[in-house]
C-alpha cells in the first residue's frame, strides 16, 4: 500500500474510532452527565491512540527506509569502480534511476514482475528498454548497477510491505486498546490533554531543530571553506575579487569590503528610518486625533507589506536617477552612476520606517497614562511630557525596535542588488557604488557553481558571519529590553 493510502486508511480508522469511542462512552452510563469527561473527549482519545503512534511510525519509516536500503545496496557496488564518496553517490543515483525505470516498465507492461528480476545486461539492452518507458540514461547500464537496482527494488518492496503491516497493526492495536478502555470512569479528558501537550512539545521541537539544522549546515560548509581558503585572508584582506576562470586560481576573498558596504548602507538606512519613524510614532500616538490615526496608521503599515523587490525597482528607477540629477555630473559631481550607497540606503530607510514607527507607537502607547497625568499635573506641556517622561520610559523598547530594524537592514538583499551595484569597494563616499554581504552571497551561488570551490563555499562563510552579526544584534536588543523593562511596571 502506498504511504498516501496508508495515511488515509489510518485517518479513516481514527474517524471511525472517534464515533465509536464516543458512542461507547455514552452507552456505558445511564446519564451522560455521569461521565468523567465530555463525550467528545472519549472519541478523541480513541482517535488519538489509533492515529498518533501509527502516523509517527509511518513518518519515521519513510525517512529511515531509504537510508537503510541505500546502505545495503551500496555494498553491492565493488569498491574498485569508484574513487571517493562523491563518485559512489553518482553511481547510487544511477542505481535509483534504473530501479525507478524498472518499476515504470513493469507498471506499463513492458516487463513482467519476474522478468524485471531476471533481467541481465548480457542478454538484453537495458538502456534501450528503459528508454522506451521514458528513463533516459547517459551510458550503458553496467551489470553491477543493474544488479544493485534489482536488489534495491526488492528491498524497497519488502520494506513497504513490512511498513504497511506495522502501521496498520499499530493503528488497529491503538484503536482496540483505547476502545476497550473506554467507560464512564476513564479520564479521557486528561489523556487528550496529555496528547495535546506532546503535540505542542513536538511543534516547539521542530522549530528549534530547524534552527540548529540551519546553523549546522552553514557551519559544516564554512569549515569546508576554511580548509580551501586561509581564514586570515578572509577576515583581513581588503580586497574582494573572486576569479571565475577555474578552480582556486588567484581569488581574493576578503570580507571587509563587503562588511563595510553592509554597515554603510545599513547606517544610511537607519539615519533615514529612525528619525522619520520615531517622529511619526510620536505624532500618531500622542498628537493625532482618533480619525487621523485610524487612517494614517494602516497607511503607514502598508509600506511594510510592499515586497522588497518593489523597493528595489523604486531605488533603480526613481531614487537613483533623482539623486543623480542632484549629485551627479550635472549637479555636485560626486556621483557617477545611479547605483550608490545613498540610493540603496534611502530606499531601505523608507522600507524600515513602518518597522520603527509601528513598534515605537505600540511602545509609547504602553507607557501608562499615570506617567502622563503625573507630568501634566506638575504643569508640564505635552511636548515636555513627551521628551522628558514618555520617551525615556519607552526608550528600551524603542532601542529594541531600532535594533530589530537594523538586523532587517543588514539582511536585506534585493534593494542592494538593484540599488547599490555589485562592486565591492572600500570607500567613504556615500555616492559610490558598493555592495553588501547578502548581495555577494547571491552572486556567488547563482549560475553554474561548483560547490567544492572556495568561490562558492565562501557564500556559506559570508552567511555564517552575517548570521553571527545579526544574532549579536538581536541578543543585544533582547538584553536592553529585558534590563530596562521593569522600570514602569
Amino acid at each position, binding site marked *: 500500500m502506498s504511504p498516501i493510502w496508508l495515511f488515509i486508511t489510518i485517518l479513516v480508522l481514527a474517524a471511525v474510532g472517534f464515533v465509536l469511542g464516543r458512542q461507547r462512552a455514552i452507552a456505558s452510563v445511564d446519564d451522560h452527565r455521569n461521565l468523567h469527561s465530555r463525550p467528545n473527549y472519549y472519541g478523541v482519545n480513541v482517535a488519538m491512540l489509533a492515529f498518533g503512534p501509527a502516523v509517527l511510525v509511518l513518518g519515521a519509516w519513510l525517512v529511515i527506509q531509504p537510508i537503510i536500503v541505500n546502505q545495503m545496496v551500496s555494498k553491492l557496488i565493488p569498491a574498485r569502480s569508484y574513487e571517493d564518496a562523491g563518485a559512489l553517490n553518482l553511481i547510487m543515483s544511477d542505481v535509483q534511476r534504473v530501479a525507478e525505470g524498472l518499476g515504470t516498465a513493469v507498471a506499463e507492461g513492458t516487463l513482467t514482475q519476474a522478468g524485471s528480476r531476471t533481467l541481465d545486461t548480457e542478454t538484453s539492452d537495458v538502456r534501450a528498454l528503459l528508454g522506451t518507458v521514458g528513463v533516459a540514461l547517459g551510458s550503458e547500464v553496467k551489470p553491477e548497477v543493474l544488479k544493485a537496482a534489482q536488489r534495491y527494488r526488492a528491498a524497497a518492496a519488502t520494506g513497504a510491505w513490512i511498513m504497511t503491516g506495522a502501521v496498520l497493526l499499530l493503528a488497529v492495536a491503538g484503536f482496540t486498546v483505547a476502545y476497550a478502555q473506554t467507560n464512564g470512569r476513564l479520564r479521557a479528558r486528561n489523556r487528550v490533554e496529555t496528547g495535546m501537550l506532546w503535540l505542542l512539545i513536538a511543534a516547539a521541537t521542530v522549530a528549534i531543530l530547524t534552527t540548529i539544522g540551519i546553523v549546522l549546515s552553514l557551519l559544516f560548509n564554512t569549515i569546508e571553506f576554511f580548509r580551501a581558503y586561509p581564514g586570515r585572508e578572509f577576515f583581513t584582506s581588503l580586497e574582494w575579487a573572486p576569479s571565475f576562470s577555474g578552480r582556486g586560481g588567484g581569488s581574493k576573498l576578503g570580507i571587509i569590503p563587503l562588511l563595510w558596504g553592509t554597515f554603510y548602507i545599513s547606517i544610511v538606512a537607519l539615519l533615514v528610518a529612525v528619525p522619520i519613524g520615531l517622529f511619526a510614532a510620536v505624532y500618531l500616538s500622542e498628537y493625532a486625533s482618533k480619525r487621523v490615526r485610524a487612517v494614517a496608521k494602516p497607511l503607514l503599515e502598508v509600506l511594510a507589506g510592499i515586497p522588497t523587490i518593489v523597493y528595489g525597482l523604486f531605488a533603480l528607477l526613481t531614487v537613483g536617477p533623482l539623486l543623480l540629477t542632484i549629485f551627479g555630473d550635472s549637479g555636485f559631481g560626486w556621483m557617477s552612476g545611479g547605483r550608490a550607497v545613498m540610493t540603496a540606503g534611502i530606499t531601505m530607510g523608507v522600507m524600515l520606517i513602518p518597522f520603527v514607527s509601528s513598534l515605537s507607537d505600540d511602545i509609547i502607547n504602553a507607557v*501608562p497614562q*499615570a*506617567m*502622563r*497625568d*503625573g*507630568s*501634566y*499635573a*506638575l*504643569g*508640564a*506641556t505635552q511636548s*515636555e511630557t513627551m521628551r*522628558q*517622561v514618555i520617551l*525615556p*520610559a519607552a526608550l528600551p523598547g524603542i532601542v529594541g525596535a531600532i535594533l530589530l530594524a537594523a538586523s532587517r537592514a543588514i539582511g536585506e538583499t534585493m534593494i542592494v542588488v538593484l540599488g547599490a551595484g555589485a562592486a565591492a569597494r572600500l570607500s567613504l563616499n556615500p555616492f559610490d557604488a558598493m555592495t553588501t554581504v547578502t548581495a555577494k552571497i547571491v552572486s556567488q551561488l547563482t549560475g553554474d557553481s561548483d560547490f567544492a570551490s572556495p568561490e562558492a563555499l565562501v557564500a556559506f562563510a559570508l552567511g555564517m558571519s552575517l548570521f553571527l552579526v545579526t544574532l549579536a544584534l538581536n541578543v543585544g536588543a533582547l538584553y536592553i529590553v529585558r534590563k530596562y523593562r*521593569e*522600570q*514602569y511596571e
Partner: protein
Amino acid sequence: MKDNNIEGRLLVDQRDLKFKARDVQVYYGDNHAIKDVSVDILDKTVTAFIGPSGCGKSTFLRCLNRMNDTIPICRVEGDIQLDGEDINAPEVDPVQLRARVGMVFQKPNPFPKSIYDNIAYGPRIHGLARNKAELDEIVEQSLRRGALWDEVKDRLQEPGTGLSGGQQQRLCIARAVATHPEVLLMDEPCSALDPIATAQVEELIDELRQNFSVVIVTHSMQQAARVSQKTAFFHLGNLVEYDDTDTIFTNPQDPRTESYITGRIG
C-alpha cells in the same frame, strides 16, 4: 439646600478663600457627571471630598486644575475661581495653572528616573532654580516636606520606582510640593497603601496644611475625620452637604449624609 449651606454659613472670610466654585457642571459625552456643584475651599485647610464610588468627587477634583482637559469627551461648565480669577478663562494657560495647583494620584506614579530627577522635574521645566546648588536645595527641601529625606538622602540617584509603595507616594507628594503650588489636590492618595504607609501619608498631609490648601478625595470616612477640617459629601453628582468635618460626622443636616456615614448607602 445648596444655598443655605454655602452662601449662608461658609463664607467665613474672603481673604482665606482659595477656590470659589459656582454651579459647576461636568459632562462626559452625554453623561451629566457633576450637577450644580458650588463650593468654597479655604487656604491652609484640609478639605475632604467623600461619597460613594462614581459620585463625581474625583471628577470635580480634576476640574480644579483642569486635568479634565486631557480627556477629549469631557466638558466643564460653570465658574471656578482661584484667588478671584476664573481658571477656565481663555487667557489662562492650563499648564501654568497646574504648576499652582499640584496633584497627587491614587496610585503612586513616580517617573522612571532617579529620585533626584523625579523631584527636580517640575522645578526644571518651570525654571525655578538658577543653578545646581539651588536645585539641590529645592530637592532637599521638598523631600523633607514629603517626610522622605532621611530615608533616601544617601540614594538620590537610584530609581524612584525602586522605593516601597508608601515611599513612592511620599515621593509623588514631594514632587508635587517641589513646584511650590498653592493648592495640593489628592485623589485617594492612600488607597494603594498599607496601614503604616497610610498613617505616614496622613501625618504628612497634616503637616502640609501649614503651607498649602489641601483637597483630598477619600473613600475612608475615618481618614476624612482624621485629616480634614472641612468635609464635602457628594452623591450622584450632587454636592449634598458641605460643612466643618466635626459637624458632618456628628450632626449631619441631610438624611443622605447621615445614611452614608452610618454605612447605609455607598
